[in-house]
């Protein structure tokens, strides 16, 4: 009952006029940013985090604004996947398979409308699932000591392969790089500065927002400088978004199935939204393959991955909020967002800050409704953003990045740091090393280390404490199972080709 009361309270807060207005602004802004060619949702949210802090909003209001931007960016990413065949993030990859063919047939508006409804249903199913299942994890929270937390972080890194779709070894290289960067700063146990080279600016460690904006937004601009691909824009006929609604009704069974598949995929730590959209699409294709034109613009080929992807993104909130394990690239950004607002996800979050959790859930839900409503009349306007030329967009991105980062600490040092991360991101991306695990390493590495050291302090240096409780052994076993299952899955995929 508590859960429902908190959720009702969350909704009551979220529908205050100011908050509704922020949700509207956030969704519109997010959609615009997310649909900027080449910028994509992850980069877009990363860019907006520092700016949002400058509006001086109350925590709840800021959370609603950021969540709306996050959702808007995710949706905006669909626009560029469908109309331009450029997926903004990995989960959107599957949407391009049928979405872009639809757009080429002049049904871009229909595909976008359909994707809006499918996303909405998927996210709604996930929100309900989150409400039902997340509190179950809370009961064991107090049993989590440093050793158990360390096991959780091991699980997060063991499953990092699921966060990105790239090569596993490159993901691990990236994660190690992130962990390495995470050791910079004053060691909070012994107060000894590490890798600070006498710069007081990094005594508190590398600010992950600076790293985030550099790795994503700045490196994108650097890539743009050498790439002229974005300059030729196809002028596709959009058509109306309204047929999407009818089409969504025809795809209702697809959407329902995909929502559930996506949700389950999302709840598994480290499986993430990419797996959600991939599984939904492939299962649907196998299920209906003979009756459909999958790959040539079948509406169900848009509905399935979109519902699956959003349900998975919602499902991924369960391990993210209750265990601190982000399941996808965009959830990792959401984690960064929460941490930057002094909300630390973990087993105790539901107990310590229930109003925050359920406020977030309500905000997610409202953002969804808002997007659905915005989507129908304004899809033409959003699509027009895609035609904005890169020579105009990229300087804007650089400007927003500089202003945003400078306003965080009034320090030119952070600007140099951001540029350094931009160059690092550029090099990594040229090497096809994913950048999300770098941020994850930076985000989670510090706590992983401190929990290990806390455990060591308690046991006077006896390593046995790490596997002395049932919870930690269970977590390690689960991590091992996931790794083996992942390898097996890859092997099966290879065999079937």
């Amino acid at each position, binding site marked *: 009952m508590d859960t429902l009361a908190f959720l009702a309270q969350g909704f009551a807060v979220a529908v205050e006029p100011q908050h509704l207005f922020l949700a509207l602004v956030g969704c519109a802004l997010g959609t615009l940013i997310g649909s900027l060619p080449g910028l994509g949702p992850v980069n877009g949210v990363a860019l907006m985090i520092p700016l949002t*802090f*400058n509006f001086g909003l109350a925590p709840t209001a800021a959370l609603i604004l950021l969540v709306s931007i996050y959702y808007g960016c995710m949706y905006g990413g669909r626009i560029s996947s469908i109309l331009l065949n450029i997926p903004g993030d990995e989960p959107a990859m599957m949407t391009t398979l049928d979405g872009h063919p639809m757009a080429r047939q002049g049904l871009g508006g229909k595909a976008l409308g359909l994707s809006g409804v499918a996303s909405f249903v998927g996210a709604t199913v996930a929100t309900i699932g989150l409400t039902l299942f997340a509190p179950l994890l809370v009961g064991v929270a*107090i*049993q*989590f*000591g*440093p050793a158990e937390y360390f096991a959780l972080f091991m699980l997060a890194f063991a499953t990092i392969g699921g966060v990105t779709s790239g090569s596993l070894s490159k993901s691990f290289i990236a994660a190690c790089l992130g962990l390495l960067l995470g050791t910079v700063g*004053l*060691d*909070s*146990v*012994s*107060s000894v500065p590490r890798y600070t080279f006498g710069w*007081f*600016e*990094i*005594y*508190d460690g590398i600010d992950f927002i600076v790293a985030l904006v550099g790795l994503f937004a700045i490196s994108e601009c650097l890539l743009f400088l050498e790439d002229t691909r974005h300059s030729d824009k196809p002028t596709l006929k959009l058509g109306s978004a309204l047929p999407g609604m009818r089409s969504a009704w025809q795809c209702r069974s697809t959407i329902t199935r995909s929502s559930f598949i996506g949700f389950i995929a999302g709840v598994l730590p480290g499986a993430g939204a990419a797996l959600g959209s991939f599984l939904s699409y492939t299962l649907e294709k196998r299920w209906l393959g003979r009756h459909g034109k999958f790959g040539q613009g079948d509406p169900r080929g848009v509905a399935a991955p979109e519902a699956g992807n959003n349900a998975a993104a919602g499902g991924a909130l369960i391990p993210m909020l209750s265990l601190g394990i982000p399941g996808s690239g965009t959830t990792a950004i959401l984690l960064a967002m929460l941490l930057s607002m*002094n909300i*630390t996800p973990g087993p*105790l979050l539901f107990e*310590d800050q229930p109003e925050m959790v359920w406020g977030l859930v309500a905000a997610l839900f409202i953002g969804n409704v808002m997007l659905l409503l915005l989507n129908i009349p304004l899809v033409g306007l959003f699509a027009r953003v895609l035609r904005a030329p890169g020579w105009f967009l990229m300087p804007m991105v650089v400007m927003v990045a*500089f*202003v*945003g980062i*400078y*306003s965080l*600490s*009034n*320090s030119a040092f952070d600007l140099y740091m951001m540029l350094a991360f931009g160059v690092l991101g550029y090099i990594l991306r040229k090497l096809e090393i994913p950048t999300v695990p770098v941020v994850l390493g930076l985000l989670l590495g510090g706590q992983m280390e*401190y929990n290990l050291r*806390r455990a060591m*302090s*308690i046991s*006077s240096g006896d390593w046995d404490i790490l596997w002395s409780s049932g919870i930690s052994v269970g977590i390690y076993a689960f991590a091992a199972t996931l790794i083996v299952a992942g390898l097996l899955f890859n092997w099966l995929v290879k065999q079937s080709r």
Partner: protein
Amino acid sequence: MSILKRARHGFAAAAFLGAGLALSSPSQALPIDECIAPADPGGGWDFTCRSVGKLLRDLELVDGSVQVTNMPGGVGAVAFANVASERSDDSDLIVATSTVGMTQIAQGQYPGGADTMRWLAMLGTDVGVILVDDESEYQTLDELLDDMINEPDSLAMAGSSGAGGWDHIRALMLAKAAGMPADQISSVKWVQFDGGGPAVTQMMGGHVDVVSTDLGEIAGFIESGDVRVLAVLSEEPLPEPFEDLPTATSQGYDVTGYNWRGFYTGGDVSDDDYNAMVETLQTLYDSDEWKDVAQQNGLVPLWRGGEDFDDFVRQSIENVQEVSREIGVIE
């Protein structure tokens, strides 16, 4: 450059340029117009700057408003270095600090010692507490300290500072007062968490035995009855609702552990300006408004100002250095 640093928001840099020019000439009559919070918005130092800045204005002790500048980094070291090198004679500027900053200086973590700055005043303080779980076997401070001295490695203590931080040091000052030999002090286990709240939660889960932290951080747990307070580290019993908590002094251990909140200014500020700033802060302290703000935020109003405060800071630094040497945090 110093004008630009006044700008809180990148957006507003241009707008502040004009204002900054107007404000940068020292004014004798109305001293304070900027407060540096050496941390991100939202923390304790930020609160100190914002609440005092607002009150200075409300009480019309300053001309116009007091600008709060956040300068995070190095647990205050960035702001310390900046003031020492660029604004040591700026008599319009105050910088928020606390016991945490003092401990950093004592352990050589700042680029300079207490002499680098002029110490203005403390306006209020949080009080250290020693807690155990409500189901713990320890009923009194004596029982806890006995065990600690007889079997130093049997207990795990936790708090929100690192080893050698203030939470750790004030707990060890108690152990010293109870007669623990100096060579054993370093064998008491210390576990650092990100705040008093997480430390208490871990204690309730049975992962650590004792918590040493500030009362303000964990007052909720005391009210809910989840923890037992063995000692508060103040000279006098606390005001309501904590008047029943036993002090260490009343149990025969002459140890206090305040976490005061106060200010310093640059080392080259003239005596006249320094005295004027101390006077302004004392007027603020004497107001009812400050008492209200302090109490609402879990602070006990407590005044030490001018030379008196300067001596207090130096003495505290010596005490911290002594304990730090014994536990091997500094050479």
